[in-house]
């Protein structure tokens, strides 16, 4: 491989502090023309801060950013874009009600311009789509596209602006393994056409597969930079995580009776997310049931039904062998269901409430914490203290507002307040999203020990690796339908990926009488 060694982008000794936290500590790296550089690091390693500095959202305390030798003025959010650096964010920035073409051209023309140049724009989009194998119809409404297609639109959007450096932030988080392969093919093609690509990820096998060179971040510091051909997964993992924390061992367990069952449950569609289509699911004692699937395929509906937030249109929820009638979050809590919500900030906690107030949020009206409408702050505070001690929540005290806690400590509190009441059923929806590796392992080991105590656990995750390593049985959800049950170790990621892409279901339907 003969790569021209023109330096496309260079970050030089970027340092950025937030109060006492040093998010980036003198981080430097550069990327050459036609190269794929992976930026590898756990959540909270400082990758996002670094990108925000690059795009002028933050002003670095020290250090410079230069593109093709030109130093960018700090704190100017247009400078990087104008210099030809484009980014595809993890959460897409597309307008659902506009077409693909409208989304791509949005913001590229001055407001005063009257000409739309419809055909010129269109032919450029079609040419780029063909050149980079990004098949998508320019007239399709973005709201009707799948996640994979939307990502293609985002990439086209960047290419349309003639980017020379393309940054992809966790691009595979929302894709099936097959879609990931397609994305990688496109990226390789792009580099042969002279683009430089920064691939941000925490998944080692993907980095090994796509990158030429890898730059590893940990706790805001660069811990290594190596060529992929000179390294392997183990040494990358060591650079990424240090020797801090080991993921818990998963031993097989014995399952008992079904504690919670969904019987033929149907729910309405929510916006563009499909509702459940006749879902049967049994959560058995002593079992972790993993629910894999691409984001937005009905996971939220399952979580809402189990957690009591919504009632099925048809079908029944059975708890401990009895069909429930009025089903609400409070009923769910009272039936012994512990719930770890998908979004700990907007659903799991109230930012301006202190730790005590947050820890009694689900049970403030029970005899534990109140009597005849009067709250018992003493026992509430005692409970909060017990939770922070037992579940290792690091905080200045129970009177601290929860918004001052880190994501990991917040999650430990939510986990603790739920587990402390000896639940028999645990609904864990994305329980480790955005946590650092130590907190991830802690949450996982808590779930495993709850399982060993005999709890039934529904683990919903978009991270296939997480589902496969923890679950005793796995279901795949796609477009509101549930796959057959797969036992632990029976399926490869690629086989599950077929189901995640929605293919196995169609065969099942054609086989049906």
């Amino acid at each position, binding site marked *: 491989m003969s790569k021209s060694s023109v330096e496309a982008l260079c970050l030089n000794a970027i340092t950025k502090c937030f*109060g006492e936290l040093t998010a980036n500590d003198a981080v430097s790296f550069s990327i050459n023309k036609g190269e794929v550089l992976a930026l590898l690091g756990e959540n909270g390693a400082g990758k996002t801060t670094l990108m925000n500095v690059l795009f*002028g*959202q933050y*002003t670095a305390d020290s250090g410079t950013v230069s593109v093709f030798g030109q130093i960018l003025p700090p*704190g*100017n*959010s247009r400078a990087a874009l104008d210099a030809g650096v484009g980014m595809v964010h993890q959460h897409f920035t597309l307008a659902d009600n506009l077409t693909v073409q409208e989304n791509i051209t949005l913001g590229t023309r001055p407001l005063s311009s009257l000409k739309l140049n419809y055909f010129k724009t269109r032919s450029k989009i079609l040419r780029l789509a063909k050149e980079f194998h990004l098949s998508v119809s320019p007239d399709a409404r973005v709201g009707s596209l799948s996640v994979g297609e939307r990502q293609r639109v985002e990439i086209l959007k960047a290419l349309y602006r003639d980017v020379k450096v393309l940054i992809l932030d966790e691009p595979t988080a929302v894709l099936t393994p097959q879609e990931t392969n397609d994305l990688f093919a496109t990226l390789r093609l792009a580099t042969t056409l002279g683009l430089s690509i920064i691939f941000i990820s925490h998944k080692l096998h993907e980095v090994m597969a796509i990158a030429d060179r890898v730059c590893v971040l940990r706790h805001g510091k660069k811990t290594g930079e190596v060529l992929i051909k000179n390294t392997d997964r183990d040494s990358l993992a060591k650079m990424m995580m240090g020797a801090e924390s080991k993921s818990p061992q998963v031993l097989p367990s014995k399952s008992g009776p079904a504690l919670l069952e969904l019987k033929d449950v149907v729910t309405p569609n929510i916006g563009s997310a499909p509702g459940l289509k006749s879902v049967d699911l049994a959560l058995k004692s002593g079992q972790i049931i993993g629910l894999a699937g691409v984001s937005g395929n009905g996971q939220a509906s399952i979580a809402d039904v189990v*957690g*009591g*937030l919504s009632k099925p249109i048809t079908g029944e929820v059975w708890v401990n062998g009895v069909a429930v009638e009025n089903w*609400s*979050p*409070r009923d*769910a*809590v009272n039936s012994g269901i512990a*719930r770890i*919500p998908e979004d700990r900030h*907007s*659903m*799991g*906690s*109230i*930012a*301006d*409430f202190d730790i005590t*107030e947050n820890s009694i*949020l*689900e049970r*403030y*009206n029970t005899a534990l914490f*109140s009597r005849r*409408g*009067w*709250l018992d*702050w003493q026992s509430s505070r005692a409970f909060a203290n017990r939770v922070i001690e037992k579940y290792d929540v690091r905080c200045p005290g129970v009177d601290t507002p929860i918004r*001052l806690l880190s994501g990991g400590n917040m999650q430990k509190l939510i986990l603790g307040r739920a587990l402390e009441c000896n639940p028999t059923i645990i609904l864990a929806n994305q329980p480790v999203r955005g946590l650092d590796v130590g907190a991830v392992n802690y949450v996982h080991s808590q779930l495993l020990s709850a399982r060993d105590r005999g709890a039934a656990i529904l683990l919903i995750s978009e991270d296939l690796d997480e589902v496969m390593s923890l679950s005793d049985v796995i279901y795949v959800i796609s477009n509101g339908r549930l796959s057959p049950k797969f036992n632990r170790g029976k399926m490869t990621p690629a086989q599950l990926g077929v189901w995640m892409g929605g293919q196995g279901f169609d065969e099942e339907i054609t086989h049906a009488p």
Partner: protein
Amino acid sequence: MRLEPIDKPSLARSLLPPVTALGATVAIASFLAMLAGANPFSVFGLILNGAFGSKFAILETLNRATPLIFTGLAVAVAFRAKFWNIGAEAQLYAGALLTVLLGTGLLPWPSIAILPTLALFSILAGAILLLVPALLKTRFGVDEVVTTLLFNFIFLLFVSMLLEGPLKDPMGMGWPKSARLLPEARLPRLVDGLRLHWGFGLAILSAISVWVVQSRMTLGYEMRAVGLNRQAAAFAGIPVNLVLVKTALLSGGLAALAGFSEVAGLKGSLTLDLSPGFGYTGIIVAMLALLHPLGVIFAALFVAGIFVGADSMSRAADVPTYLADIMLATALLLMVLAIMLTRFRIVRN
């Protein structure tokens, strides 16, 4: 430019902006006083003197503060749960209406029986009046800002109709005015010989009760949770809509007590000028108090003091009383800004 939250504001950070806001309010008012051809120092001296300078002035200020404490509490309770009750004015008149309906002869009871009855029915009237917007909001998602605001006009016109018709005092020489309350239905003086009635005591008691509810009772916990994060409250199992309805009932009841106390304590009958916008001024009071029920007492005294002081200043210095309105509006706007600055810092991009 954007705002960055400050985790732990320093003492200077939490004191400087409000003090600056107060200073700026005084500066702007001084400028206007000078435009009116008066010496600002003497204007402020007169306001202060008119509000707190004599026993009579203080009692007048306390009397004026009484309805403001009730409406301020009504707004503070509702806003705490993010239920935007702009209709305290209508609820005040609902309370006043029930007071004259039942208190002018229908219930010939002694004070000890009739006063609690009147208070109770006033509360019910205000609560039921706000129940309608609350149900419209929780059932159909109708914006309560619009409904409660419009109810003010509807209800005032309704009262006006009653005062021109069935409720018109036959002895009233043709004025749109209700009959006078029975002597038993009048709130007694707080201290003999002083023009301050028990309505003020009731207001202080209400503020303390609301504070106790908010800090000690599950209902207050629910209302705060719903106000801070409705989604998380629903997820945790708090019946959000029920809490909003309860909040509305409490808020409407508190505002109605302002009407009861004004009629039974001060005026003795119902006219259309019973409230010079106490319901709306209650919003200013609640905001200045940062929605804290005990803070409402002090904010109401501050606002009442400015109004009463400005009245007497106007007579002495020949500066229009509008100065009071301008001072309150400036104080409110600057205070809201100042409070934001105690929690956020402005960062230049």
